[in-house]
């Protein structure tokens, strides 16, 4: 059993590989050309948030995935879907809140945020 503290709800979760730092392109180094805010950039903001229960990141637990991040720079909207590790995960609301706070702090004010649980993956989707 675990060494100290309360037993984990999910002690041996599936883990996923970290995607690594985004490589810097020549275009990004060009002073003149603008870079739009894209899905990967939003994903990079939230992927390294730590799970409240594990010493693992949301990316390693596959709670967030780049395909579930949608951004429209021109219309200033961001939508993030996240998937709790197990359907009864009691931390789902906390995870959602962590993502939201991180995005509010890191994005320009013009953005409208929508953070929600991936449909069909949690018992309290509307919590």
């Amino acid at each position, binding site marked *: 059993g675990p060494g100290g503290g309360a037993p984990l709800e999910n002690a041996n979760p599936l883990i996923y590989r970290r995607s690594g730092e985004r490589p810097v392109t020549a275009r990004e180094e060009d002073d003149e050309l603008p870079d739009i805010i894209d899905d990967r950039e939003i994903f990079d903001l939230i992927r390294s948030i730590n799970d409240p229960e594990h*010493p693992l990141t949301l990316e390693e637990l596959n709670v967030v995935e780049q395909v579930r991040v949608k951004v429209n720079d021109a219309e200033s909207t961001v939508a993030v879907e996240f998937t709790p590790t197990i359907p009864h995960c009691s931390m789902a609301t906390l995870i959602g809140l962590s993502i939201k706070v991180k995005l509010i702090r890191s994005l320009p004010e013009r953005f409208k945020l929508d953070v929600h649980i991936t449909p069909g993956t949690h018992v309290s989707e509307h919590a």
Partner: protein
Amino acid sequence: FCLENTDPRMRGRGMQLLSQVLLQCYYLLQEKEVLHLVLFYENRLQDHHLVIPSVLQGLRALSMCEVLSPGLAVSVLKAIFQEVHVQSLLQLDRHTVYSIITNFMGTREEELKGLGADFTFGFIQVMDGEKDPRNLLVAFQIVRDLIAKNYALGPFVEELFEVTSCYFPIDFTPPPNDPHGIQREDLILSLRAVLASTPQFAEFLLPLLIEKMDSDLQSAKLDALQTLTACCAIYGQKELQEFLPSLWSSLRREVFQTASEKVEAESLAALHALSACLSRSVLSSDTEDLLYSFLSSILQDCRHHLCEPDMKLVWPSAKLLQAAAGASLRACHHITSSVLPLLLEQYNKHPQSSQRRTILEMLLGFLELQQKWGHVEEEESTLLSLQAPICSVVFSALTDPSVQLQLVGIRALTVLGSLQGFLSPSDLELVVDHLIRLALCEEDSQSSEAAMEAAGSLAPIYPKVFSGRMVPRLEEELQSEPEEESSRDRCSLRQRCLQALAAVSTHTSIVRETVPVLLQHLRKVQKESEAGSAQDIISVCQSLHRVALQCQQDAESCWYYHQTVVPSLLAMAVQAAVQESTHPPLGKALLQEEVLAAMVPVISAATTHLSPELAAQSVSHVVPLFLNGEVSFLPQNSFSCSFQPFQDGECLEAQRRLVALLMAFVCSLPRNVAIPQQEWLLRELLALSCSCNCSFTATTAAKCFAGLVNKHPAGKGLGRSLPTTGSAVAQPVPSMSPGQQLDEILQLAVNRIEPGLVEGPHRTQALTLLLWVTKALVLRYHPLSSHLTDKLLGLLSDTELGPAAADGFSLLMAESPDVLHKGCHADVRIMFRQRFFTDNVPKLVQGFHGAGPDVKANYLKGLSHVLNHLPKPVLVTELPTLLSLLLEALSCSDRVVQLSTLSCLQPLLLEAPQIMSLHVDTLVTKFLSLTSSPTMAVRIAALRCAHALTSLPTIVLLPYKARVIRALAKPLDDKKRLVRKEAVAARGEW
């Protein structure tokens, strides 16, 4: 009289005086005097407690006497053990007792051992309850000596253990400004040395370690794990046997569940040590082999996790198994024979690339352990019996579409290849074919590069296979003419061939095959007059350069390479230059600046590692080629007209550029190689550098001149300073010393530079020459360097040359890639940057304050360059004095100054927050305003500084918090992604 006074304070003072005297002169005492004093002092131990400290001081003095009669040491110690309650004394007096014991142990070991276990017991009572870290260090040392020198512990082993282990784990934080300088780490190591000094402690220590590993305190865990590792060095099966199950379960838990990499690493190290300890023990036929039963329990707990390549515990399990297996050949054999078949089976069971990658990575880990034991042992190796399935798994990874899996496959291939006798000849051919395919045809550049690297590391092991199979294939591909493929594919395939040829040239026999292919190809692309051919030539040069670097360590390859490549390159270049001189506007690709610049490192790398004898042989051809047009040593040497790069004449411009190749050669020679006709050569270079209209040629000549001057022997003339202006220069006479020759040539240079700087069409050339000569002399601490640096400082106020002079400081401070660096044997003193800083920064600061507004920026820029190249630790200690200037520099509109100032301030914010706090207002304002600079690099640097501001004390920052967070919202919407990234980091931290 004092000694008999009834007031204990007075007696104490009397004793103090006597003991002080003894401490001064104990070495003068006679044996008899010592005897009387000892008896007196022993008796005084019964005196009032106020007197005791001085009595102990006296005994300490006596314990240092060489003439102490036999028996007295024992009697002194007995008296102390009996009469003194040590732990009720003050720290200093307790320390005195330890010193007495230490002194006696050093000189009277046999006598003390005569006391038997009583001595040990006495000491246990002395140290029981000790709390002062200074005393503990001494006491621990005494215990170590007791054990190491085999004093009788008798029935007191457990007591001795108790009296020391009660400090475990050490929990001590030195008070701030501690004058004794005892660190927690000192105590930890000292106690560990005690605890791990004898197997006799094992039965008490191991339960304690297990208890501490199970605690929640990370420092206790780490200490326990490290102590366990230390114990394994001296324990045997007997000590460990009873505790193995609990030890294993604790270690397993730490690795499976830890959040700390450090704990994980120490747990693995402890497991490794345990396994090594069990492997070491000699087996007797009737006892159980503990190693096997221990390993079996590990296998039992870890094996099944390996079958779940998606799950979190897969890696911890693999690490545990590898830690245990890495301890000995026996352990390795036992574990791999169980795990390898399992992994192979799992690989075939899991079709997904990502799972296969995990499994293959684990397999690779076990193969690397095999590599550690060198060759595969014919009889008992399970590895050989698995040869076919392992190869098939690795080959399947190489053909998988997933690049990640390919990369692991390539690494596995490299390991398999290095296991001697593992790959059969037919497998080897297959390996080479796979590598060729991946190197040339794999779309992903990572895989292609990895395959080339693998070929490079396997080629020296199997040179015949690679030279017979790979080199011909690459040559064929290189020569084949483009067919239907688009020219871009063609181009990249050629590029890959060139890279692969260079990568595989890691064995002397292969170099002899690849170098002619590369040179042949170079001649071919040089003849093709495509637009892109300059780039093609550069690619070949890059490959040739890599081969040159790989040849450097092997004298034979190095000389072969030099002899083959240098004359060929020179011949091609001379040929092109001579043709250009006769039919001027040809515009040969080979003579373009960037192509010549690409040939420079090739020639340089082919020259730096030559032995002085061979280098002398080569220099006797190359210098006459440039000075006298001696072309006879070149491979194709019939030219349409003569080669005279140093002659005057419009049409010789192309020939003059080849000074770049001369520079590459002559500036890379070892310092002790004499250069024929050096004076003449230097004069020609000097003239060329000052008068040539082409800036490439002039700069190259200046660099070549500087490179030679830097290495020119100084002789005795070094100390004498030179007259600064134009005295008539005598012609060199043969009897001159090297030092005089150097002074002479430097004087010539100064005489050309000074008037050149004042006026005329070649001011820029004169400045360039000044910079390079200054650099050459600054590096070797030549006395003339300060005169030249002052010249340069003076130019900062020149409206025309000022900015270039300011940038010149960067040239002085930076490592130059082709000349004047350590690699080409230049004379570089290690502290030259610090010295330059100390000598010149005050002058720069002074100049700045005296300068007119239009040239102030030049001084700041020069200063920025100097600061930028200073080692960071030096910078941090020196910067506070320059702080006000740096703050002023933040308002300078030059972006080079802004950038360099920001990069100076950033480490200062992190390392000297106290000083920086005083300027927080200015810093916040300037940093925030620079975050909207038009230059991206400045915005990034300003945001990094804003980020670094957070390391100032919170109390200083609080008033600015709201303002900074508001201001940092704007760069979150910057048009550049890299800027936004820094803004997110900085704002998050605020």
